[in-house]
């Protein structure tokens, strides 16, 4: 064996062993993460876990959510208007009614009694984020663009954080939660077996407010307002009761606008079982919240307190005595609902509502089915190709098959090492690579045959065949790789997996079809001084 040949064999050996070792190592490291038994996971488990499976094979949920940042802007607007009114009251400035003509503006009517100089002073001091202009006897406050953008940006960042907290508390392995563009959030959760629950968990705004009840509950809105002259008083609002199964009518409550405490005052929340049966959520307040709560409940013993979740009254218990730092939310909860509500209360409220722009859920049984079918098709396809190549090229065909098998092994190793994700189209890409990689062998073998027909000696024919086919092989690979790169650029999830598999497979096939095949030929014929005929 020549020195050059020995080097070639050694290199091939090194690459293949490296790839296989890489695969097994990645497999162990992945398997260990999920392994609950004692000791280290068995090799069988590691071999299964070498390559990360995409959501379409593993099952899971892919969501693109839009943060309705306008909610946060509106909340800021309401706060600002509220603050201006409070300031006016405190400083004795008389102002007319406040109106909300747009999402990021509000107007304050001025009366002849209004001290506009003092109003201006107060606005400058307390509403630095707002531009004030006057028009037709009204002051128009508009949110500054920069402030608006900051509010929107914070809302999205906070939503990402909140979702992450919730998912972490729920316990999902390898979640992906990422901001996309200005107001979108991408959430990918593998291995979810109950997508509905997770979706509810993410989307639940979980905005908790406790407000003092001034009237109701009743199904008659006008009766609610009768004591107030048919008008909703400025410091009150009407809130709908939560719809409970079995209940016939929608009820309404009249409550004080300003909340006694909100979800922000919570320290902890946990699901509890009530003595009478049924599930509830207990919450515990932080120091500041407890102070406010104690003051409010102490002053309002005998009155009702509305527990409002996402703008709906969940329950309205009567305050029997002063309460300091804890309370209970009741309703008709299943154990899981109570658990999830406690979870979202702990994790914090979303700053704005969410809209699902895109959802792709794959159940575990479909994923399993896809894997089975993908593998069956791949193995069958590969066998077809192998048989065809051996029939057509005899011993040289066997050489090609060996190269193709090495190609497949190395592709698996490369995918593991690059931490690439295998998807269902990726499986197709894998097998398509085999179909296309055979092209290089065909190009070379046909060249060798031509050389033989032209009367060249077998050894020369082999060398010429390889060298003449080489440029074409590079050409054919490059064209497919170029389009695969565009595919990668465009692709989402499964399609991206396909592109990655194809690119890696083709790169490897240059090595196997050219270098490995040539080496095998040399092994077969190199030692002999004289060859009569090639088996091709």
């Amino acid at each position: 064996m020549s020195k050059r040949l020995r080097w070639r064999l050694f290199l091939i050996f090194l690459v293949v062993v490296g790839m296989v070792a890489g695969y097994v190592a990645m497999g162990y490291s992945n398997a260990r993460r999920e392994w609950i038994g004692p000791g280290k996971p068995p090799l069988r488990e590691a071999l299964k876990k070498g390559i990360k499976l995409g959501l379409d094979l593993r099952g899971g949920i892919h969501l693109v959510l839009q943060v309705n940042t306008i909610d946060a802007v509106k909340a800021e607007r309401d706060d600002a208007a509220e603050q201006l009114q409070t300031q006016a009251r405190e400083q004795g400035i008389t102002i007319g009614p406040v109106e909300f003509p747009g999402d990021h503006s509000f107007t304050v009517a001025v009366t002849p009694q209004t001290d506009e100089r003092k109003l201006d002073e107060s606005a400058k001091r307390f509403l630095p984020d707002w531009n004030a202009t006057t028009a037709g006897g009204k002051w128009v406050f508009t949110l500054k663009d920069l402030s608006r953008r900051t509010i929107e940006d914070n809302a999205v960042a906070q939503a990402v954080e909140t979702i992450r907290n919730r998912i972490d508390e729920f316990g999902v392995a390898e979640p992906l939660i990422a901001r996309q563009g200005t107001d979108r959030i991408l959430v990918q959760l593998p291995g979810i077996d109950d997508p509905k629950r997770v979706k509810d968990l993410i989307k639940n705004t979980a905005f908790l407010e406790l407000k003092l009840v001034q009237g109701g509950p009743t199904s008659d809105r006008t009766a609610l307002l009768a004591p107030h002259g048919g008008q909703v008083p400025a410091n009150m609002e009407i809130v709908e009761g939560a719809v409970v199964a079995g209940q016939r009518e929608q009820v309404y409550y009249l409550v004080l606008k300003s909340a006694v405490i909100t979800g922000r005052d919570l320290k902890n929340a946990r699901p509890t079982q009530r003595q009478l049966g049924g599930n509830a959520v207990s919450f515990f307040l932080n120091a500041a919240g407890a102070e406010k709560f104690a003051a409010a409940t102490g002053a309002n013993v005998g009155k009702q307190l509305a527990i409002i979740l996402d703008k709906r009254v969940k329950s309205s218990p009567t305050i029997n005595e002063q309460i300091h730092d804890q309370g209970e939310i009741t309703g008709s909860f299943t154990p899981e609902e109570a658990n999830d509500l406690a979870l979202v209360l702990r994790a914090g409220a979303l700053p704005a509502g969410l809209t699902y722009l895109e959802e792709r859920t794959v159940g575990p049984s479909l994923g399993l089915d896809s894997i089975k079918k993908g593998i069956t098709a791949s193995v069958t396809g590969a066998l077809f190709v192998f048989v065809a190549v051996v029939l057509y090229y005899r011993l040289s065909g066997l050489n090609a098959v060996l190269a193709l098998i090495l190609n497949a092994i190395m592709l698996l190793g490369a995918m593991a090492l690059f931490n690439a994700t295998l998807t269902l189209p990726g499986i197709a890409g894998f097998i398509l690579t085999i179909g296309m990689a055979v092209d290089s062998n065909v190009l070379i073998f046909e060249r060798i045959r031509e050389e033989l027909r032209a009367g060249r000696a077998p050894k020369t024919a082999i060398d010429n065949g390889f060298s003449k086919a080489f440029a074409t092989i590079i050409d054919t690979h490059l064209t497919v790789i170029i389009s695969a790169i565009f595919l990668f650029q465009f692709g989402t999830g499964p399609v991206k997996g396909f592109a990655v598999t194809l690119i890696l497979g083709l790169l490897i096939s240059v090595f196997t079809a050219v270098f490995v095949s040539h080496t095998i030929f040399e092994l077969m014929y190199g030692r002999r001084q004289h060859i009569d005929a090639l088996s091709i």
Partner: protein
Amino acid sequence: MELFRQTNIDFLRYKWIAIGASWLLIAIGLFAIFVQKGLKFGIDFAGGTQIAVRFAERPDLDRLRDVLKSANLGDTGIQRYGEPERNQVLIRVQQQKTEGRDVSHDVQNALRAGLLPGGGDPAKIDLNRDGKDVFAARLAAADPDATAGRPDVVAPQHYATIADQILSYRAEAGIFGSTADLDKVPGVSVAVRNWLKANSYPGPFVLLSAENVGPQVGADLRKKALYAVVWSIVGMLIYIAIRFRSLPFGVGAVVALIHDTLITVGLLALFGREFNLVVVAALLTLIGYSVNDTVVVYDRVRENQRTPKKEALESVINRSINQTLSRTILTAGATMLVCLALFFLGGEVLNTFALTLIIGILIGTYSSIYVAAAIVVIWKDLRSRRKLQVVPAAKPAAPPPPAAAKKKKSGRR
């Protein structure tokens, strides 16, 4: 074995017939796209909702239709799919007018409400819907295995393992037909089994997949897909321009490429196949494949042109096609074998993907010879003829229309 031993077929003799056939195929495709059915966009591009569910028994589609009508979702399509014994149904709901309605949620709720009298007892476990946590938590709360007094078992872990077993069984078997199926789950004690039988019910269906694409995302994906196709064609153009530095070769390859893409899309429309992300992936692969095939022939043409012997271009190209013929057929054949395996065995998602590639490979192989190579010949023919016409400068030097060229061509033969 050799199938094509030194063939010497005059391929280019039939080029005009072939070009006619190409136009015919393109016309059929365009007809299918624009007149007949239109390009059927899948929900990736059209937006909307698609839900696949599996039932324990053969579902009555009319009943499902009635049930869904109550959910007020607008146009819904319901069809069976997959192997008949699996009782799988695909429900497709058109794009809703307002963004953000969780349609997949509404469809599932409507199905449950309609098929399960009373909507199911929330205190019981739905064997076909609930996840691992629900099983584990409810079992741990009830503790049928009486782990409380045993120091050797940790209850949460014990029941988590059981929940795992049940869910793997569900994934494997597809669906719980009745609570009696719990007997088939391995590694579960009789006590647990009996408790589950009393405290669970088999929900009407198992959710296989749910896809919901809003109008924004749909429009986004359509734009991206179009860009990807256009840019990869441009990429090929640039590659060939650099590689061959010759206008007719470049034009030939790109025309062949557009030809292949157009016909493939047209035939998919004709067959009523849905156009989705995976099909676009197949199309882009095809773009690579089509050029790949063309480049092999071109490479050989250039190599043959390098020999000092003076030879007519048409004959050089013919010779090159013959020399690469066996490679062309073999490679197409090998790739085709793989695609056939995917087509027949790969399941729903890969079926259209494979079909796209099968059509594409057939057309792409043909177009390497009859479009890419033929264009080079025709181009050079026209150029040399125009030169002849320009030199006398008697007539206005308008380029001869193809019909005239065709007549002259056949006359010369």
